[in-house]
């Protein structure tokens, strides 16, 4: 479904050209969850932005190939990109408060993709939006629909973002650090939600994070990036249990661990945390 080939992103906004992403290659099949991990400045977000068609900047040179359903998104005109954005590719970003318009009610913003891509009546759109809000496990969708972003908690706001991204049933959901600004308990809920969406609608997910433990929980395969290069890639289990590159080992080693967590914590789990 998605094939990225020799992706290279260079910036010319300083006196010396800077290569931010170098020769990134990967494929993502339908229904797959791929994680991209790496530290700040490793190029993971830029890679995602390029796929989302958000890299049409004058000071950047993007080369290579991003094939999505047979269309090369990199050299497509804006109109073609627009037809993909929101309908075939959905995005969720780290900071939901800055992606949501503070003076517009949540419902309207969730419907956005439908307004752009589909010909629907107001009532149809509202029904779809309520369904989408319900799908992301928000209680009382009617109330959320009529709320402003600041009236919601961080977790609710991120669910709203996901509802908006998923409303037109995209085949690919790009989630760029969607849980970084959230509490641990809420992080776990959002991960569960992404798993649910992936199963229910067979949506492929590109999950970008620097939190390796979350990537391990969610993703089937993983791409480790450093300084714009893909250092290592493969199935999640294999990379985590048997990393080949020094950099990957260093990354995994720096996750704080609780030794023997499974065997030592014998207390009964409370499963109903939603």
């Amino acid at each position: 479904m998605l094939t990225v080939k020799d992706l290279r992103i260079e910036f010319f906004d300083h006196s010396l050209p800077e290569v931010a992403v170098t020769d990134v290659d990967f494929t993502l099949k339908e229904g797959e969850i791929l994680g991209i991990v790496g530290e700040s400045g490793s190029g993971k977000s830029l890679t995602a932005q390029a796929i989302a068609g958000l890299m049409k900047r004058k000071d950047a040179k993007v080369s290579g190939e991003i094939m999505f359903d047979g269309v090369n998104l990199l050299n497509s005109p804006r109109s073609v990109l627009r037809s993909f954005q929101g309908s075939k590719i959905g995005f969720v970003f780290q900071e939901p408060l800055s992606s949501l318009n503070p003076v517009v009610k949540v419902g309207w913003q969730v419907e956005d993709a439908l307004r752009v891509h589909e010909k629907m009546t107001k009532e149809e759109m509202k029904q779809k939006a309520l369904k989408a809000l319900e799908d992301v496990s928000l209680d009382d969708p009617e109330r959320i629909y009529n709320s402003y972003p600041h009236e919601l908690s961080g977790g609710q706001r991120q669910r709203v973002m996901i509802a908006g991204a998923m409303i037109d049933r995209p085949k690919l959901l790009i989630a760029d650090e969607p849980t970084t600004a959230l509490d641990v308990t809420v992080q776990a809920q959002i991960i569960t939600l992404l798993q649910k969406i992936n199963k229910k609608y067979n949506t492929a997910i590109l999950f970008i994070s620097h939190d390796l433990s979350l990537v391990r929980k969610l993703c089937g395969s993983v791409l480790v990036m450093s300084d714009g290069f893909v250092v290592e890639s493969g199935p999640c289990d294999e990379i985590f249990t048997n990393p080949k590159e020094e950099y990957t080992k260093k990354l995994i080693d720096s996750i704080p661990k609780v030794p023997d967590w499974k065997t030592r914590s014998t207390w009964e789990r409370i499963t109903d945390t939603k």
Partner: protein
Amino acid sequence: MDANNEWQTELEVKDLRFSYGKNMPSLKDVSLTVYKGQIVGLVGESGSGKSTLAKCITGLLKPAGGSISKNDAKMIFQDTFSSLNPSKTVGFHFEEVLRLSKIPKEQRKERIDRILRKTELEEDLLNHYPSELSGGQRQRVGIGMALLSEPTLLIADEPVSALDVTVQAQILKLLKKLRDENDLSLLFISHDLRTVYNLCDYVYVMKNGIIVEDGTIDEVYFNPKEDYTKILLSAALDD
């Protein structure tokens, strides 16, 4: 920890109450003790009152009731960018702290050198502006500023949450080293239960302005009593 100062109290908070407005209590009878040389974790979700408690201890907020023992606590924060002045060099920040703590001019150079060594920063960095530093360097500068007046208690409010894992590990190592070499006590506020396990000796779990559970790390992690603690633990640690 030396055997002879094992039970010396560094900080004692008793029945602390605070509210930001009428009918909005954000701390309800909070009691907490930090012993000398101990690293105490304070965990809980956003809005549980962790940072409010820290601000009360350092005197940034005036509590409505209860007591806090006399202390010289200094704080370090999550967002180092907003605690540093973007138009002043690192050296200026250090100088200012020393000036405010009335350290005579002739001693300042020596103090700054010592802090640079402690926080593993290059001397050259003194001439740089905050924007020219990496996140890890900025946090080291924040720690350095807090340590300049040589406090015996440091309160760290989510000091590594905004950093990369590898940099997190370096800062945590530094905090541990500072405790070991200087007999510093540390109140470490975080929602990251993995980090707390690896850094702290004792932990308090907070929810809605109440301490719901406390104990040594092993007690709380492997034998939690409260449902809330269990939910927090499994959210953070279960696969």
